[in-house]
Structures are given as structure tokens and as C-alpha cells.
């Protein structure tokens, strides 16, 4: 079996084995073993990929192709480039840490969790538009029950809102996919082959916006981001982690891989519309985060801002900015997962997420608090951590576009860094330092061992990405290059 199919087969096997499990110990064993295997497989994938890359300069490596539905040229086609490899690694890390962050959940929760993972991994390995879309939707629907059953707060409302908004996005997307297939001649659904075909301009004008919007909804594109704060605030910890950490990246990845790659002409001509929208996302998300008092809402709006930056950078359509965008995806995925893990930890103990009802947690839970500070610093772009590298590349790349429109937008977007610092430092100062707000909090225990595993795992990745970004950047660059070449040939 192709190494890529392992990433779908393994969660599927976990799901089936879970059906047989009865006790909590068995469930945890299965989940930890499975997630560790996924992590190992991801590490193996990087090694194999780097080896293959040295030997070949094909656009996609490790490809495998099986005909599925011949009449519509639907294949089960898998293959990866540098970007998807890193996305798979990110997903594996977050699935792994997510298991530890949801240590006390029951079997049914993990069944849906596995299904969600199948969707996520399947999406990143797919080269076929149909299977890509299939996995995309597989990743969406478990969210409804994960939030609706195990969530907190206005969970039913949030779950329904999230599901319907994302499904509405996929309605746009499917129209776009059918458009791509039939206007390119109805011969292939394979992304690489489609890139070699030309979609008539008149069709590109509607397919590009439709596809970009479809994926953009998941990437929290303004004004279709409203599912994100509610959804993330209501979701249980590990679901927030996976959703903000990985699922929102599906949006950015899809915009890059489908909308821009397949319709380069329209991307050039129409990118300005979406640049304005993403610019608003970046700044508006940050400002909204400033006025929130619920920890999860703060982080959710910060995600809107950061994911907006991903789409913003992709739309700059140049090598540096796009590389930065992928780095930003990785960086945001890791740190937002860390944030949600810690918020879940704090909420599980204090039973409040309102920053006005907390204070001095540093004295009570030193480990969790230190981790929170690290996550905050990564988020506001402290050099040495992942956030700095990503944002630096994004803004350098964006500033390279030297017309007034791009320059102004870049400057506006760059302002979000300052606003980020405001809400991060304000939150950190309020809840971690100062007097203990509630005396009942004094007796609360610090992080348990499984929560420490989760937090430390993520911090190690964040620091690694910050200290040695070139390792990731080199792999990304090779993935971005063919797309940029495709864009510049015009």
C-alpha cells in the first residue's frame, strides 16, 4: 500500500477497533497507539519525501492512482508535494496532542474524532477533485455532533450554524468543481492534469470566485467567518484544537491548490476583491479579539485574524508570500491548538472562561501559565518562535508587490501585529498575573500528566519551527514553485 493511504487507513482502523472497545483503558490505548502511529507515519513520510524529492523533480511525489468511477473519470488519486507533507505532519501532531487533551472523553466521542481525522488526512493526500471534496465533507459533518453533544454553552446553536455555513460553502465549492471538470473538457478530475488544461476565461470568471469563496468560508474569510467564534467557543477542547488548528487550514490549502492553481488568469484579475476581504478579516478579527472577555472567543477571533493573513498572503501570488502563507498555516495551527488546549485546561478547573473572573493563575498553575505565556508570545510574533518567521515572510512577500493598492493593504494588515500584542498581553496580564481573583481557585491542581504531554508536544514544535524555519521553508518553497511558475507564465 502507498504510504499516503496509511493516513486514511490508520484512523479508519482505529475507528473500527473502537467499536470493539469496552473499557476506558482500552479506548485510551487504542487512541494513543493509533495517534502515535500516525505521528510516526508522518515522520516517516517526511523522510521518504525528502529522499524522493532529491531523486525526482516531478510536481507530486509518491503518487498512486486507482480508477474509481470510470464514467466520470473519478480516480482515487493520491500524491503529495512539500506543502501537503507539512500539512499532514501538522495534522498528525494535532491529532496526537488532541487525544491527550480529551483524555476523559468516551468512546463515541473518539469515534467521531477518528472520522474527522480521516477527512482531514484524506483531503491533504488527495489529487483528485472528487475525492478531495469527499474528504472535505467527511471532515465537516462530525463537527455537528462533536460540538452539539459534547460542547458547552450555546452548543446546539453553534453546531448548527457552523455546519450549515460550512455546507453552504461546499455548495459553492461543488458547483465550482463541476464547472472546472466540464469546462476543461470533462476528461480528468486530477489536479495536476487539470492544471495543464485551460479553462476558458469566461468560465474562470465565475468558477474562481465560487471556488475561492467555497474554501474561503472554511478559511474564515470575512464576512463568512461568523461560524468560527461561536463554533470554537462551544466546541470541546480537542475539537477546537483540531478545527482551528487543522480544519481551517483546509480552506487556505484548498484556495491555493484548487482556486489559484487551476485558474491563474482569474486569480490575477480578481484577487483584488478577495484581498480587500482578507485584509478586513485580518484587522477586524484582531480588533474583535481586543474587546472579547471570553478566552475562547479571544482566541477564535485571533484565529480569524491569523487565518485571514494566510489567505491574504496566498492572494499576493508571489513565491515569498505564498511560502509565508504555508508557514503561517503551520504556525497558527500549532499555537492555536496550544491555546485551546490550555484554555480547556483552565476552564476544566476554574469553570469559567471569563477573563474578568480570573487572576493570578501563575501562582496556582505555574506550568499551564508558563505555557500560556509561550503561546501568547508565539502569537504576537516574538522572534525565535514560529509566529515571527511566518509573519515576517508574509509581509516581506506582500510588500514586494509594489503598486499602491498592495502596499496600502499590506501596511493595514501589518498593523494587526500591534493589535495582536494588545489583546495577548492584556489577557496574559489579567488572568496570569496580579492578585488571585477568586480564593476558591487557590486549591486548584496544575496540569495533569496527559495535559502536559499535549502542551509540551506543541511547544516543542512551535519552538522548532521558530528556531529552524529553513527546514520547513525549503520543503514549502519547492511546493509553491510550480504554482508560482504557473502564475507567471501568463
Amino acid at each position, binding site marked *: 500500500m502507498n504510504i499516503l493511504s496509511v493516513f486514511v487507513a490508520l484512523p479508519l482502523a482505529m475507528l473500527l477497533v473502537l467499536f470493539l472497545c469496552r473499557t476506558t483503558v482500552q479506548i485510551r490505548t487504542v487512541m494513543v497507539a493509533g495517534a502515535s502511529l500516525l505521528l510516526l507515519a508522518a515522520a516517516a513520510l517526511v523522510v521518504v519525501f525528502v529522499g524522493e524529492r532529491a531523486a525526482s523533480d516531478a510536481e507530486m511525489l509518491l503518487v498512486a492512482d486507482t480508477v474509481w468511477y470510470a*464514467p466520470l473519470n473519478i480516480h482515487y488519486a493520491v500524491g503529495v508535494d512539500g506543502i501537503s507533507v507539512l500539512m499532514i505532519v501538522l495534522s498528525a501532531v494535532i491529532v496526537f496532542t488532541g487525544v491527550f487533551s480529551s483524555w476523559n472523553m468516551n468512546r463515541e466521542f473518539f469515534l467521531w474524532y477518528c472520522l474527522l481525522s480521516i477527512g482531514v488526512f484524506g483531503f491533504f493526500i488527495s489529487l483528485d477533485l472528487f475525492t478531495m471534496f469527499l474528504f472535505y465533507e467527511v471532515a465537516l459533518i462530525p463537527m455537528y455532533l462533536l460540538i*452539539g453533544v459534547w460542547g458547552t454553552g450555546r*452548543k446546539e446553536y453553534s453546531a*448548527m450554524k457552523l455546519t450549515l455555513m460550512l*455546507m453552504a460553502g461546499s455548495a459553492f465549492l461543488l458547483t465550482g468543481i*463541476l464547472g472546472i471538470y466540464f469546462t476543461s473538457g470533462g476528461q480528468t478530475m486530477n489536479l495536476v492534469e487539470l492544471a495543464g488544461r485551460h479553462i476558458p476565461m469566461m468560465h474562470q470568471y465565475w468558477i474562481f470566485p465560487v471556488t475561492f469563496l467555497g474554501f474561503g468560508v472554511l478559511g474564515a474569510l470575512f464576512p463568512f467567518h461568523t461560524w468560527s467564534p461561536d463554533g470554537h467557543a462551544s466546541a470541546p477542547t480537542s475539537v477546537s484544537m483540531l478545527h482551528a488548528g487543522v480544519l481551517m487550514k483546509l480552506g487556505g490549502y484548498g484556495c491555493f491548490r484548487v482556486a489559484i492553481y487551476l485558474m491563474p488568469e482569474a486569480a490575477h484579475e480578481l484577487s483584488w476583491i478577495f484581498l480587500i476581504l482578507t485584509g478586513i478579516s485580518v484587522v477586524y478579527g484582531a480588533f474583535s479579539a481586543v474587546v472579547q472577555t471570553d478566552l475562547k472567543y479571544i482566541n477564535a477571533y485571533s484565529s480569524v485574524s491569523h487565518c485571514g493573513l494566510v489567505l491574504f498572503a496566498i492572494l499576493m501570488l508571489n513565491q515569498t508570500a505564498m511560502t509565508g502563507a504555508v508557514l503561517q498555516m503551520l504556525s497558527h495551527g500549532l499555537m492555536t491548538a496550544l491555546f485551546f488546549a490550555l484554555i480547556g485546561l483552565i476552564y476544566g478547573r476554574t469553570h469559567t472562561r471569563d477573563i474578568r473572573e480570573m487572576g493570578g493563575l501563575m501562582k496556582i498553575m505555574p506550568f499551564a501559565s508558563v505555557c500560556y505565556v509561550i503561546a501568547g508570545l508565539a502569537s504576537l510574533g516574538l522572534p525565535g518562535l514560529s509566529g515571527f518567521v511566518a509573519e515576517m515572510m508574509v509581509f516581506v512577500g506582500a510588500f514586494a508587490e509594489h503598486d499602491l493598492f498592495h502596499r496600502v493593504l499590506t501596511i493595514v494588515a501589518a498593523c494587526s501585529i500591534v493589535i495582536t500584542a494588545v489583546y495577548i498581553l492584556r489577557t496574559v496580564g489579567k488572568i496570569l498575573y496580579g492578585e488571585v481573583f477568586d480564593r476558591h481557585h487557590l486549591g486548584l491542581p496544575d496540569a495533569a500528566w496527559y495535559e502536559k504531554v499535549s502542551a509540551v508536544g506543541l511547544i516543542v514544535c512551535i519552538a522548532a519551527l521558530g528556531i529552524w524555519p529553513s527546514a520547513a521553508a525549503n520543503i514549502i518553497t519547492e511546493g509553491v514553485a510550480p504554482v508560482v511558475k504557473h502564475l507567471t507564465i501568463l
Partner: protein
Amino acid sequence: MDFSGFLLMRQEVALTAAMLALLLYDIFGPASWRQHLRLVATVAMAAVVAVGFLPATTGEAFGGCYVASEMTALMKNILTVATLFVFLQIGGWLRAGERAHREGEFYYITTATLLGMELMVSAGNFMMLYVGVELASLPLACLAAYDKYRNKSAEAGAKYILFSALSSGVMMFGLSYLYGAVGTLYFSDVSAVVSPTPLALLGFVFFFAGLAFKISLVPFHLWTADVYEGAPTGVTAYLSVASKAAGCFVLLFTLYFVFGRIEGIWYAMLWALSVATIVIGNLFALRQKDIKRFFAFSSISQAGYIMLGVMGGTAQGMASTVYFILVYLFSNMAAFGVIAAVEGCSGRTDIAAFDGLRRSNPRLAFVMMLALFSLAGIPPFAGFFSKFFIFAAAAARGEYVLVFIALVNTVVSLYYYLLIVKAMFINEAEGEGLGRIRTDNYNRLSLVLCTAAIIGVGIVSAIYGYVGDMSAGVALK
């Protein structure tokens, strides 16, 4: 005498034999045999299904009134499988209470309507088609009123017979005009000479309206909700799957082959009707409190999706339509199996009866959820694939706007399907809830088969390939 014509009709012959055998068994069998009636009926129906899967023969009988091809064999198989599921699911209900002594009636009346539907599918002449429609409709009214001591069931029967008679009349009226315009009722002759003259068009529109009633396309859907709600649950399942499917099959054949020359006309008609059907079916489904009414509107909107495939107008379009109906059969039957089980235990059909089903009956809740997801078109379940192929068939003609409207409506439909999932998985039952439901073995078998199909039919591409081969075998204009 030449018996080869009967070999051609072996599905109908088997069905008739099964019907007569059941009738004789019920009337003349000793009283002690009666307790096995359910088993006998199920086995007889299974035998009819098995006969349908023998290698198909093609040809004509009765001077072209009756046409058999691989495609008609497949369509009839879909209808008989649906009926088999109905038998499996309704058997327990038939035995309860005062109904026990007339259990047999249900089986042979149902087989009679099924015979009518098979004749509709195989018709090669409009008279034959009309006979089939009548044979399919009249006994159905008896079935809808089967639970005669319940007012709603009696009302359903009365409504169905009135609407059915009206629509048959309208159809007959249309056929008379058509005959006046082209001078023949044979499909092959009509297709050669039909042209968009006012008289022929008038005839066509009336004929179409009669069929649209069976499929419950908007605006011919007004009977649907009341009849679905009032009829016994098994009959509702039968109406929503077999009856609708038969109508769609006939529509496919007549539109493609008989009225192929006036495609421009029916294409525009179907465009408008499919949008209206999807939108209105969806909007009304949103507010329903009774699960059977809910499924009435859900099935109306599904019929709208089926029309998208019909509009495809190619072998691909035909394949996707038949495949959609096949998947719809399994999804709807799974849902109705669960509804029957819940109704059998609680006697309730309101959606609130499903509150907290996950806690009391996790397996039933699971099956219901799969069925709903499949109906909503969520991967990896079969409904996703069938919807995708329908949309692909429409998109192949460049109907992106239509596809988009339909897709937006799937989001609306997802909302109301999720409401039931929410009732089962998130809401808590009031009071003690349902308690553990003991489904009988027959219904359990039907649910297991449907679940396997919902999960497997999409992933196993050979099934679509099979349907595709069948429709490619039909000579298309």
C-alpha cells in the same frame, strides 16, 4: 402456442404467481397455516426478486405493447426490492390488534399494485401504460385506508383515491389529444411523428401532469403530506419509494424515447418544475412536527433532485437517475424501518418521539442517522454519490445555475435532517423516554441490509457501473 412471450414477462408472471399463491394460501389454507403467512409472503417476494435477477431477456410481446430490456428488468428489480423491504418492515404491525385476521389482504393487494407498476415500466403503448397506472393506483388507496378504524387512515385512502382518479382522468384526457394529434398510441410510432403542434403539446402536458401526480412534483404534490401522514407507516414507505420510483421510470422512458423530438419543450418545463419542487418541498419540510409529514416533504424535494438527472437527457443522465432512486430506496427504507420501530413501541409519530433515542436505542439512532445523512448527501454514504452524479448529469449540459440552486437547497435540507439528528442525539427524552425497543427479526434484517447498502453502495463503484451499462444498452436517440 408460443410461450416465449411469457418468458419475456417472467417478472410479472412470477409476481402474479406469488400473488395468487398468497391469496389461495390465505383463503384455503388451514387456520394453523395462517401464523406462517408472514414468512410465506416474505419468501414469495424474495423469490420474485430472485427471478428478476436471472439474466435478462430483451424483446417485445403483444405486438409491441409490452417491451422488456435489461433496463426494465433492473427497474423492476428496484421496485420488487422496495416491496420486499416493506414486507419485512410492516409484518409485525399487520399482526397487532384487530388487523390480525386480515393480514393476508395487505400482501396480495400490495403485489397487485406492484404488478401495475411493473406493467407501467414495461409499457410500449400508452393504453398499456394507462392500465398499469390504474392497476398501481387503485389498490394503493385500499392500502392507504388499511387501518380503517383510524380516521386519518380512512381520510388518507379517500384523498388518495380522489386525487388518483382525477390525475388518471387528466392523463387519459391528454392521451386522447395525443392520439388525435399523431394517430397512434405505440411509443415507437409516436416518437417518430410527434411534433410541437398545439394539439400534441396539450396532450403531452396533460399526460405529464398525470405522471407528475404519481411522482408528487410541485404543484401536483398537494395530496402527498396528508396521505403520507394518514397511511400506515409501511404503506407510506411503499408510496414514497416504489410508487414514486415507478413514476420516475415511466417519465424517463417516455421523455427520452417517446417525446425525444420535443425535448426543448419538456426540458424547459422540467427546469421550472424541478426548482419549484426542490424549493417548496424543502421549505415545507422545515416546519413539520410529524415525522411522516416531514418525510412527505423530504420525498417531494428528493423528487425534484431526480428531475435534475432526468434533464441530463443522456445515457449518463438515465444511469444517474436510476442510481439515485436505488440509493433513495435504501435510505428511505432505513428511515421508515426506524420510524416503524419507534411507532410500534410508543405509538407516536411526532418528531419529539425521537428525543433521546441515542440513549435508549443507540443502534436505531445510528441507522436513522445514516439514513438521514444519506438523504442529505453527506459522504461517505451512498446519498452523496448519487447526488453528485445527478448534479454532474445536469452540469454536463451546462446547467450550473440549476445545480447551484439545488446545492443551496441541499444545505436547507441538511438543516431539517439535522433537526432529527439533534432530537435523537442531543435532546433529552422527557420523562422516562422510550425504553429499549425490541425490533422483530424481519425488521432488523431490513435495517441491517439498508445500513450495509447505505455504507457500501457508494464506495463500491461496480454498482454504478452496472447501472451505467444497463442504461448504455438502451438505444438512446
